[in-house]
């Protein structure tokens, strides 16, 4: 029951969290900014609009946003809520999790190519290039956790990750840094992408969805924010001790997720967006962190300081 309530709150909160980022940026820039719930108004506005669909597109273009939102929601249900566990879980579920996120991205790339626009082609090419880096690194992150806990399901991994002996803080810090970079990349945030720009040539995610309007666009915007929330939940899973009673655990969980988004807002306020050709360098930082975490975990488990 508690899990159902938690999942419901998670499903409705991503837009609020994105509003939070905008609020932080506005305050930093000396403006009052739009209300935190503005993304909900935008969502409702888009849901009430009609759609214009390019005549040169195939059904792929039509179904992509729905497939994207469905796959991402499914991925959310595999991910455990701290202490409460997940809706679906089985051995190796994190592989399905990664591929569900991958599928959501894949259909969007297909849809972008489907429009035949040169802009969207560029965007798709960039998205795929950076995904190859991020997805690989994500498997190393999960691999490190599996190695550390000897479990192969999200729920059991996170149930035991906080039980493992004292060396885990180092691994955890590296994994958290890794996940934060993943969040910036997958959520199309600065320094990887600039969600506020109107300059098509510099965009990655935004340019892929140029042809969408109405409810489909609302779905896409929701999917992106949900994806960011999912990664923030992964970070919270790593941090909330599994022995905490449910109510304080959920409180801590909420605080962590909100802090992650505040941090994203702070990063966006403080640094400029990276040059496109330098973004892989930034993403390889994620690879570096996760490989280091993996090495540390392996070292202690197999070699070990006796």
């Amino acid at each position, binding site marked *: 029951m508690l899990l159902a309530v938690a999942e419901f709150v998670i499903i409705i909160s991503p837009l609020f969290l994105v509003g939070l980022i905008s609020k932080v*940026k506005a305050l*930093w*820039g*000396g*403006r009052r900014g739009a209300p935190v719930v503005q993304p909900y108004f935008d969502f409702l506005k888009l849901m009430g609009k009609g759609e214009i669909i390019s005549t040169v597109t195939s059904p792929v273009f039509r179904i992509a946003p729905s497939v994207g939102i469905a796959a991402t929601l499914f991925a959310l249900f595999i991910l455990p809520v701290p202490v409460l566990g997940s809706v679906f879980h089985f051995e190796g579920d994190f592989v399905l999790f990664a591929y569900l996120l991958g599928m959501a991205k894949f259909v969007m790339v297909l849809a972008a190519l489907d429009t035949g626009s*040169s*802009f969207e*082609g*560029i965007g798709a*090419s960039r998205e795929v290039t950076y995904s190859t880096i991020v997805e690989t690194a994500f498997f190393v992150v999960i691999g490190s956790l599996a190695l550390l806990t000897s479990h192969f399901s999200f729920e059991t991994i996170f149930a035991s990750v906080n039980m493992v002996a004292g060396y885990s803080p180092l691994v955890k810090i590296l994994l958290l840094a890794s996940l934060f970079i993943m969040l910036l990349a997958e959520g199309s945030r*600065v*320094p990887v992408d*600039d969600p*506020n*720009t*109107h*300059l*098509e*040539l*510099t965009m990655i995610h935004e340019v892929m969805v140029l042809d969408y309007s109405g409810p489909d666009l609302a779905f896409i915007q929701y999917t992106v924010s949900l994806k960011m929330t999912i990664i923030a939940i992964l970070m919270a899973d790593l941090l909330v001790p599994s022995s905490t009673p449910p109510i304080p655990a959920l409180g801590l969980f909420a605080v962590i997720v909100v802090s992650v988004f505040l941090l994203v807002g702070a990063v*966006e*306020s*403080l*640094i*400029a*967006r*990276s*040059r*496109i*050709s*330098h973004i892989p360098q930034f993403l390889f930082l994620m690879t570096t962190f996760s490989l280091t975490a993996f090495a540390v975990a392996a070292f202690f488990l197999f070699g070990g300081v006796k």
Partner: protein
Amino acid sequence: MSWLEVVNLQAVPVADIPVLPMDELRRDTIEKIRNGQRLALFFGERTSAGTVVYSIIADDSASRLHIASSNLRDGMKFTSMTPEVSSAYLFERELYEEFQIEPVGHPWLKPLRHGIPGIDEREKQYGFFRMEGEEVHEVGVGPIHAGIIEPGHFRFSCHEEKVYQLEIKLGFQHRGVENLFVTNGSHPIYLEKLAESVAGDTVIGHAGGFIRGIESLSDVKVPRKAKLIRTVALELERIAVHLGDLSALSGDVAYLTGNSVFGALRTKVINTTMAICGNRFGRGMMKTGGVGFDVTPDLARKILGMTDRLDEEAGLAAEVLFSSASVLERFEKTGVVSKETATAIGMVGPAARASGVAVDVRTDHPFGGFEFLPVHKLTLPGGDVFARAYIRYVEIRQSIKIIKEQLGGLTDGEIRQTPSALRPKSLVVSLTEGWRGEIAYIIITDDDGKIRRVKVKDPSFNNWFALSLAVRDEGISDFPLCNKSFDLSYCGFDL
């Protein structure tokens, strides 16, 4: 035959301008430019017998302008200068479009703005540059853009993310400005308003350029006070736009702090302009014979107070912007235009000075308040986006100093003289350093002292080609940043 030598804003009888055979005009022009002078203008005027082509060469180090002309009958051709003188490239295309005089041997002859009358574009294609090859792709941007931007078409030939060639097609906002000056010549107020709207972001610069030209033709003596007020207005415009550009450059690299701070500072400056003339962009400020609005000692103190605070605040903001590693990563070594290229294609204004070319009309051909108080030319060596951003900051500081000097010289007195009739059959060259660079107005009067021909040249005309060259071999995603670092006018080009 020697060319006529004049200074900026010196009206001369048209009859005094030497008429050379076209070959000689061409040869002399090429020779002068080889000797380090600059092609300021190369334009035509339709006459009953054909077309008169004028060549105006600026000798910046001597503060002189050289003028000569040549008569061409309809259907005549001439040998193109472009292979020898790159800066003639657009001027010759313009001549070809307006008067159908073909420059033979021009490397890339095609229409410039509105197309050639009588030639159907569907039959004779514009002829974009094309690159062939596997995995080569073309990206066309515009003329309709996202956001509120003027229309222009940019066609990139790319391989992966790298731009090999950018072709810029403009002309979507052609309004026939030069013609409007002539057809409405009898309404002085209309003309001032028209000059203000040639490029909406350079109100003081364009109106000032035109009005000074008219004044030189009409012997009206502009009061000293008016000249000082005009200079203050011009520099306020420069500061405001430069601040806006720094804000926009920060925005283009998603650097929030610079974006908000410089944007806020700009508001203070344009509000000061509003305090003088009631319009934030300086409309109504410039009047033939003087200025429309007085600067009282009280107002002068207010302006000085604003500039003092601005000096400090802009300094702080610039320190943050230009020391931020993530910003420098984007600005440095992006969109480099070398000094050789800048000189060859005849760049002007801050963009040229950022490439190390020392051209500044305020120093080279002083006008208005700059006759009393000279300005130092500032240059930077880099030629990249950083240099074009930093030169703006340096010029903001310089303009603040100029405003202080000019306001210091303010005395009681008249601010406006009544304009008088224009001298017949005369020509004047009026050069102005707008915030974007050299604005040129050529005004020619007929037998009755009516305006017969106005030639306008916005600095964008010189600099658009530099943008094409700047993005070569750059990533396509850096184009918007390069574009903003030049911040060129579409309507100023389209006329």
